[in-house]
């Protein structure tokens, strides 16, 4: 029992470490990537003993700044809820990582370790439940600030997140129907099969439409740029306008964490998680006949690396999208959600169901 606890704690530590550091890294990536896109240089002044490392220390400087800033609570605010809201936000963003598998079963001696903090049979539902609960942080922040601007920002966030939640849910229905499981570990394992012997049966192959709907809706969930109406820092004032110091920093952190959650989910659901094409537990089996045996630990390592690479690529893509697209107007946002993505997602489910039924009948 003790061993299980230790293993789980280590796994949780690894996931937390990776997620939080990647979130910190995002602040650097955001500065530098936008700088490169816009022909600038980007923040490069923070240094430790003269070492700048391309401005990597700016994240650190940010954290120190956030922690040492004065924490201002408006006089009209509900103090308790105002203080709780950022914690809700970060908490629900962090617990989401628990169900995401980042590697295949690790066999150490006679012990089988799932590289996943919590092996939940309904992992997918758990993740979406947690992501939906994340909106509470936003609503409470807007509600408890005692500011009309923050209140309206919170309202916008609520409407946006609820409408896009539905599209996400229906988009992944197709995935669940194809692979027949909501356990994310099993779902990834199911994606390791081959279609016609040589195409890996990843979600993007079997459910391309669902992927695009999921991508758009999940981007809206993260409240980042093409869909950043809840925030709109510079013009339309968002829900965290009355926050300062690290409480504000936590909302910021949540944004980056949610981006990573969405990247992990995209990788898990549609790009085979830790799967590498043609890599089976005992080694590579190429469709043209070659074979390359791989030891177990290396196989696990390749899987973890594969998953990390996919997540990083998605983070990069999201960042690129964030610096490419202008913000939607609110009516455009709602129209895209309800009249664009929602019907497409429903149609996708219908088509998937019909095709699956026909396949089962043996056509």
């Amino acid at each position, binding site marked *: 029992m003790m061993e299980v606890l230790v293993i789980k704690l280590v796994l949780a530590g690894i996931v937390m470490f990776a997620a939080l550091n990647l979130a910190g890294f995002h602040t650097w990536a955001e500065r530098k990537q936008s700088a*490169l*896109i*816009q*022909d*600038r*240089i980007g923040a490069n002044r923070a240094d430790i003993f003269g070492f700048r490392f391309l401005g990597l220390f700016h994240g650190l400087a940010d954290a120190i700044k956030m922690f040492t800033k004065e924490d201002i609570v408006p006089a009209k605010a509900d103090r308790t809820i105002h203080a709780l809201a950022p914690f809700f936000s970060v908490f629900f963003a962090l617990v989401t990582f628990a169900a995401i598998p980042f590697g295949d079963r690790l066999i150490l001696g006679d012990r089988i370790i799932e590289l996943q903090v919590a092996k939940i049979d309904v992992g997918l539902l758990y993740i979406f439940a947690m992501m939906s609960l994340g909106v509470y942080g936003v609503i409470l922040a807007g509600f408890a600030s005692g500011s009309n601007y923050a209140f309206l920002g919170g309202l916008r966030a609520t409407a946006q997140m609820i409408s896009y939640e539905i599209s996400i849910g229906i988009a992944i229905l197709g995935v669940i129907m194809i692979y027949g499981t909501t356990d994310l570990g099993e779902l990834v394992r199911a994606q390791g099969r081959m279609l016609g012997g040589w195409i890996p049966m990843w979600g993007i192959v079997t459910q391309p439409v669902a992927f*695009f709907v999921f991508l758009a809706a999940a981007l809206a969930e993260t409240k980042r740029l093409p869909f950043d109406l809840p925030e709109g820092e510079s013009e339309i004032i968002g829900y965290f306008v009355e926050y300062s110091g690290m409480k504000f920093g936590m909302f910021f952190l949540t944004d980056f964490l949610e981006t990573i959650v969405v990247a992990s989910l995209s990788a898990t659901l549609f790009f085979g998680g830790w799967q590498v094409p043609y890599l089976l537990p005992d080694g590579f089996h190429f469709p043209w006949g070659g074979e390359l045996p791989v030891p177990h630990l290396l196989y696990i390592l390749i899987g973890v690396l594969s998953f990390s690479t996919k997540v990083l690529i998605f983070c990069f893509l999201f960042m*690129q999208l964030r610096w*490419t697209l202008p913000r939607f107007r609110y009516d455009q946002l709602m129209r895209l959600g309800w009249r664009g993505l929602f019907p497409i997602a429903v149609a996708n489910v219908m088509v998937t169901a019909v095709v699956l039924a026909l396949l089962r009948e043996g056509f």
Partner: protein
Amino acid sequence: MAIKVVRRRELTFWEKLYIPQILCGLQITFAHFFRNLFLHTAHHLGRLQLLPAAVTIQYPEELRPLMSRFRSRHRLTVREDNTPRCVGCMLCETVCPAKCITIVPGEHPDPNVEKYPVRFDINLGVCVYCGYCVEVCPEDAIRMDTGILDLAAYSREAMQLDIHELMDPTLRKPITECNLAFPHKCSVHGGAMRGSWGGVSSVQGSQGDGTIHKLQPLCKGR
């Protein structure tokens, strides 16, 4: 009243699909991203220095090239013997619309020169950089070509330039307490000041011997 109605262009079907347009946008940003990434890497390796990867001018280290007519901080030009060219004619003080120039003329030891500025102060906090003083000067004694434009100070007093700083643009700290005799040995810089009064000791034998002009701060009433 003529009203011009500007209609928005109707979007084509291709544009309404939205995703192709997103891809077009991504193409632009990706092109910039990878081009600049490649160039930055090349610069770090010391290659392709002529192709700029960013339009940024990293300000305190790199300065923007100035136009030759750019009006920056003033300086007083000097003769070959390092005395100011200024003859104390007061034209610049008179023409100055901001009234930021204060000149106290004194009698020059050389009978051919008549006057010299005992004191020449410019209050940069008041100056509007119109350049009239440069235009009006008959002796080409004042110019605005130092290229110094990062003029900032913590106090109004620090914005006052005296004749030392005007003659030597490398001096940045205002010298407030200085006994101005002519010829003059500056007590602040140990008598050695570049572009200043260093070479004139032979004009008069009694330099720096305590002949002190007690100056009233003339700009006090402003």
